């Protein structure tokens, strides 16, 4: 892709605080704060400095000065005065092409500033797609045989909201108690959920799944591919705004700390992609996400391992699996140990130890199934490496038949 295109996109995603639409609403929003016993609004000290900066939007009319106490989020000019913001920029080794203003915008959640030109909603959508794209291609090329439910769980572990919130914490991002124009732009700004609110009671409406009101209908794992998001959760993204509830459409709904932090990390990813290009975004993903430690073999939960293994062997035309005792001790004692191996023909598929024969057999079947699912090719190459210049010709990766259906 050409650099020019990137800049064309970024011009639509980035803009200064020049638009005056929605100012009335913002004033309404902040009128409560304005009436408080706060100090009188002070004009920013470095107005001159802010004016001198050559901000990309030179064609737009100069902004009408608004007191920063009336704004729902810090003004763009404040980004250069924040030590916190500069420190965060340097701590993440962000490219110098990514300006501080964009990083400041990444820190503003839609719940703090409703205007999509000043919050991070557009960045976070892009960053979310990039993160899931890179994570999915890495996962599917590395472990081509993983069943879908484990793919969902692994993606959740790598790029799920909990992990992204933990990442924001590990980056040293601090949170503002309440968003506002006078707040340091280096703080994450979002409207907090009132303490004591039960988040699980809210019914999910507006999902992409048809017949969502039928709670007792069985949801197959394959339908999750079509209707649900990349973690196997109900998806709200594809719904047009007219069908959403008025509160959701206005984005004034308070969010939890986890959601706000996750949106921040996603929007940093999107901002890097827009400003520094695809290579930098991919490197950022590899350094921050792929370097995390995850034991995929601990994510499996089999309900009927022996039955699955029989089906697998039948599907792959192997001899039916047979469980044999490899060794045992203390059969007549209180603490026996049996080591059972599962063989198909002469080959051992898996091995497990347990205190009873059924247990050892079940564990051996689990080990055999994990051995099947966790196959990884010798050399792993993901499709996005082809985007680099001078890449070697693409060799097709191993594609599996699919999971063992039962």
């Amino acid at each position, binding site marked *: 892709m050409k650099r020019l295109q990137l800049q064309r996109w970024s011009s639509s995603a980035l803009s200064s605080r020049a638009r005056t639409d929605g100012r009335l609403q913002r004033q309404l929003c902040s009128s409560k704060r304005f009436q408080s016993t706060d100090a009188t609004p002070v004009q920013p000290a470095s107005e001159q400095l802010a004016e001198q900066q050559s901000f990309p939007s030179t064609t737009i009319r100069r902004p009408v000065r608004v007191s920063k106490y009336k704004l729902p989020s810090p003004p763009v000019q404040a980004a250069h005065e924040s030590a916190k913001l500069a420190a965060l920029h*340097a701590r993440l080794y962000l490219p110098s092409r990514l300006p501080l203003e964009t990083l400041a915008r990444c820190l503003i959640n839609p719940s703090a500033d409703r205007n999509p030109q000043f919050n991070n909603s557009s960045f976070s959508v892009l960053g979310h797609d990039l993160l899931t794209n890179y994570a999915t291609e890495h996962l599917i090329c590395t472990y081509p045989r993983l069943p879908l439910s484990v793919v969902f769980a692994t993606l959740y572990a790598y790029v799920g909201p909990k992990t992204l919130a933990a990442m924001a914490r590990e980056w040293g991002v601090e949170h503002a108690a309440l968003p506002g124009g006078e707040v340091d732009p280096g703080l994450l700004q979002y409207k907090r959920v009132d303490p004591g609110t039960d988040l699980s009671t809210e019914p999910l409406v507006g999902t992409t799944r048809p017949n969502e009101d039928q709670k007792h209908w069985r949801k197959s794992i394959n339908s999750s591919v079509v209707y649900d998001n990349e973690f196997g959760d109900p998806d709200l993204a594809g719904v047009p705004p007219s069908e959403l509830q008025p509160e959701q459409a206005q984005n004034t709904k308070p969010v939890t700390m986890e959601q706000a932090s996750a949106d921040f990390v996603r929007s940093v990813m999107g901002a890097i992609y827009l400003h520094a290009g695809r290579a930098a975004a991919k490197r950022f993903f590899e*350094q921050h996400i792929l370097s995390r430690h995850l034991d995929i073999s601990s994510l499996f939960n089999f309900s009927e391992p022996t039955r699955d293994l029989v089906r697998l062997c039948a599907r792959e035309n192997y001899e039916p699996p047979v469980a044999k005792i490899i060794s045992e001790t203390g059969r007549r004692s209180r603490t026996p140990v049996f080591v059972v191996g599962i063989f198909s023909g002469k080959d051992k598929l898996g091995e497990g130890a347990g205190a009873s024969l059924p247990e050892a057999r079940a564990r051996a079947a689990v080990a055999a199934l994990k051995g099947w699912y966790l196959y990884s090719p010798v050399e792993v190459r993901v499709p996005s490496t082809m985007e680099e210049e001078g890449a070697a010709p693409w060799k097709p990766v191993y594609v599996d038949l699919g999971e063992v259906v039962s």
Partner: protein
Amino acid sequence: MFSRSAVARALALPLEQAARPSFTSTTFRACLHQTTATTTPTPEEPLSASPRAQSSTPIPQPTPLPTKTPTTRADVPASKQPIAPTFSAPLTVPKSLLETLPLLSHQKPHYITAHLHDRPYLVTEGDHLRLPFLMPGVQPGDVLRFNRASVLGSRDFTLKGAPYVDERLFECRVRVMGVDSEPLRVKEKTKRRRRHVQRITSKHRYTLLRVMEVKIKSVEELQKEGEIVVGEDKA
């Protein structure tokens, strides 16, 4: 920083040699006995702290200019002395090793017994390592490369050096995480018939490292680097 100066020295060798007779290289190697600094992330190079982006092209080590093994003290035993890089001759690999190397390199994960000051550290990728001393001349964020290892292994196979494995067969990089210190130690000393207890305090400082990668090069990679000569199997 160091990497850039090392590259510059490798490219413009005679000029640099005349100007400054290999001061940096020798002292640095003398300080960190068995480690070789490769990269130092600088804020000017954004996202440069990436091992993956830079490890593909190993920085050419300058051939030891006044070819002498740097020594710290005369009383340091020979086993603790740093090894001079032996890159003048291409790597010789016996045929038996070449045949069994794919078995080892295809079986992941790997562990390495890296030696630093003749002390072995058995590490895998991602491990946290607290050296029992304070390493001089390093900053948090620096990337070092361990180049002395006695054992490299996977689950079923072990590559054993005699006594050390050639450093061109593997890559083990660590990142300096910072400096840790221990709680204050207080040693109470008493002398006879002296109604006084002498309290001697000490507080040691240690360097923290994180193992970034442990990689055994495959046969194809060794052949690509062009440094492979199949030698006779003497065993």
